[in-house]
């Protein structure tokens, strides 16, 4: 008897057990179920939610791998062990085993904690509420390690994931019912609960915090600075990275957000597979460009002068905003979450535009923390149902008008 039959018999035998959803989750992971249609269409298309979610994860894998190398690269670079990458994307300074080892050592635990805690809670709720384990967390679990600083303590991540899954999703009824993007809820929790671990110039490079403590303890060492480009700009300093570095991703930042190139490839993959909404991605870029150009104009017109603390970010060329910070990652992988984004076609254009527009707005004007993508997406998550409401009302009004034309 093969594995297939054994698992089937096991399922049948334990049909009424409370824990069956937990078994089913693993069973359906191994085998597409033997379920057949009844009552409606007799045939169904090939796609299911697992495949959809899996496609998004596939699109993120390059960012994860790059993030691992980058964690090591930034670490070694800050320590002065290696030279800066000099020959484009395939620089030999970057793709080394040393770099990968650091990345694996630091980032795999993040992935494991994220999935372990998140899926654990999902399984628990599925059993308590007697429904199948839904796949929503598969994507969230991959997003979370990619949007946190590399040195975040694991217990903080665990607490945040628990908060995000329970308060951000399960209290609303689980996958498909939540209002806010769960991954961003988790990040927002970290951001407001442990701000010192989420911002500043010490958290973006592995080892910087530890080095600071060593210095404080009296050791004679150089401090490691790993400021993000946004942080540098916000302080009006000169940026030490070239545009190529920004685009390719050889810069400090959250684990998976740095490589605009790979995010762009992931985005194109999502658009090609028709899983991600190209409307949201495109309109978000348009929104960001519009805001960026407005700021550039204000800066060149001299309305805001160099003495202003906003000058640095305002005068940064508008296109740079697209490839630094979390904008690209947020636009491609977070703003497009179908559950929390606008659901209507026209709504998606409005929603995406505002995500991009407000991202740059908050980024420039946020005094404490020069990044706005997370807050912009969360804000627009809240407004997405309102946008949809007015879009759908347009359809309703057209229908009512039809009657009036008749009776008139």
């Amino acid at each position: 008897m093969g594995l297939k039959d054994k698992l089937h018999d096991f399922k049948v035998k334990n049909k009424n057990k409370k824990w069956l959803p937990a078994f089913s989750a693993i069973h359906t992971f191994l085998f597409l179920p033997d379920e057949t249609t009844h009552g409606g269409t007799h045939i169904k298309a090939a796609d299911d939610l697992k495949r959809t979610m899996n496609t998004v994860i596939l699109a993120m894998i390059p960012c994860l791998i790059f993030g691992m190398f980058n964690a090591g690269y930034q670490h070694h670079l800050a320590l002065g062990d290696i030279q800066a990458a000099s020959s484009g994307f395939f620089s030999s300074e970057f793709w080394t085993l040393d770099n990968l080892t650091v990345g694996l050592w630091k980032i795999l635990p993040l992935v494991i904690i994220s999935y372990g805690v998140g899926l654990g809670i999902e399984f628990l709720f599925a059993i308590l509420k007697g429904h199948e384990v839904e796949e929503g967390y598969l994507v969230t679990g991959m997003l979370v390690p990619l949007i946190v600083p590399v040195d975040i303590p694991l217990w903080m991540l665990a607490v945040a994931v628990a908060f995000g899954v329970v308060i951000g999703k399960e209290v609303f009824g689980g996958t498909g019912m939540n209002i806010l993007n769960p991954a961003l809820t988790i990040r927002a929790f970290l951001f407001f609960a442990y701000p010192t671990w989420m911002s500043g110039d010490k958290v973006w490079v592995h080892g910087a915090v530890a080095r600071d403590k060593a210095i404080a303890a009296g050791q004679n060492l150089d401090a490691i600075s790993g400021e993000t480009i946004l942080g540098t700009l916000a302080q009006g300093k000169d940026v030490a990275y070239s545009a190529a570095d920004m685009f390719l991703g050889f810069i400090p930042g959250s684990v998976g957000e740095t490589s605009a190139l790979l995010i762009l490839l992931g985005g194109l993959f999502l658009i090609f597979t028709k899983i991600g909404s190209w409307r949201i991605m495109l309109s978000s870029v348009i929104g960001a460009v519009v805001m960026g150009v407005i700021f550039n104009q204000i800066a060149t017109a001299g309305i805001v002068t160099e003495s202003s603390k906003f000058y640095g970010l305002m005068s940064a060329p508008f296109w740079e905003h697209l490839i630094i910070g979390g904008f690209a990652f947020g636009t491609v992988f977070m703003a497009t979450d179908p559950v929390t984004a606008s659901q209507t076609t026209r709504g998606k254009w409005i929603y995406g535009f505002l995500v991009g527009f407000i991202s740059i707005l908050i980024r420039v004007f946020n005094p404490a923390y020069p990044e706005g993508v997370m807050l912009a997406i969360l804000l627009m998550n809240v407004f997405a149902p309102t946008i949809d409401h007015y879009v759908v009302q347009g359809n309703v009004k057209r229908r009512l008008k039809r009657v009036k034309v008749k009776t008139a």
Partner: protein
Amino acid sequence: MSKDIRIKKGLDIKLIGEADKTVEQAVVSNYITIRPEDFHGVIPKLIAKEGSSVEAGGYLFYDKSNEDIKFVSPVSGKVIEIVRGPKRRIDAIKIEADKAQAFKDYGKLDVSKANAEEVKAHLLDSGCWPFVKQRPYDVIAKPEKSPKAIFISGYASAPLAADLDFTLKGKEAELQAAVSALGKLTEGQVHVSVGKNSNSPLASLSGVTVHKVSGPHPSGNVGTLINKVDPVNKGEVVWTVNAQDLVIIGELLLTGKFNAERIVALVGSSVKKPRYFKTLIGSEVATMIYDNGVEKDANDRIISGNVLSGKQVKPDGALDYYSNVISVIPEGDDYEFFGWTKPVFDKISVSRALTFSWLNPKKKYDLNTNTNGEHRAFVTTGTYEEVFPLDIYPMQVLKACLYKDLDEMEALGMYEVAPEDFALTEFVCVSKQPHQKIIREGLDLMLKEIG
């Protein structure tokens, strides 16, 4: 007068097992079964008791809520069994057919001289009325309210549908009589759709507005035609009639006989030689499917109707009252190792998420009944809209039905739709939600609460 309707949103589901253009006389079915569930919302009151004899066209039962709507027997014979379900609900009426068929004579009706009342009374009296359905609610038309227009689709775009150009050939006289009669019942027009490059006998009828439709399924659905021509507003009613049923109506008007003969396509990948049969409404499907058809003990699903909206029947089950297709496809009750993630070449998909049906849009597929995934909450957006050509927000309507908000259902266009309009969205649904059932229950709720 001819107008073109071109649909862009939709999906042609190309399957193996299209019927060859040959018609065979089906073996005469000894037993004919009429199932009241075919007539949605009708509570049957029996006229023919168990053991009594009926003529072909003789009354079997009437609708409890409207005694005028009568349902007749497709054959002459003896009512041998009334199959009852829970609470003595009538599930089926079984008639043993006589060797020699006798027709009840309803008399000819010269449509050109008759007025609306006479036509209506004649159709009601002769059991032809159940062929006339109405929207809103997709139920048998209420005879007392006259429709603003009547819609007939002469173009079948559903997967493996019977080609109406072929099955209606040579029936011009019956079709003309039927549409002339129906034309008397509405102040508006009788709208007929035909395929753009077809030579449908419907195209040459007089007294109708012909629309040439093109594009992917559901371009041939009558719901699409209504939406593009003259959508149903609150308080309005339109009627629809299946093109193949016009033949029965027409023949009754011309000869006075209710002749339940219908040309039916036997299709599907499990059928060895898919072809057309001439048979009667209510015939056992076993009379058609085995000869050069399906293997006796194969694990197949037999569907009275098309693979999107038809009803599952057993081999001893019957052709239902409105279908002109019997589809047989393999059951899919088997597991597939890592089926959710491995690249898929042998199934249809509207995405490209490691699914490759986009590479070869002309390929014909052998799909089974596997759901290809489990039931989930609504997650993805924008997928339904790509296959849904009506000016309606499909997901919003479905959700309104689920939370039973009558005002919202009305505002979002429930009066315009029938379950079959949501067959394609159900097919592509990533969350495997039962769209047609949701819409049917929504319509039933509205019918009960608003009426």
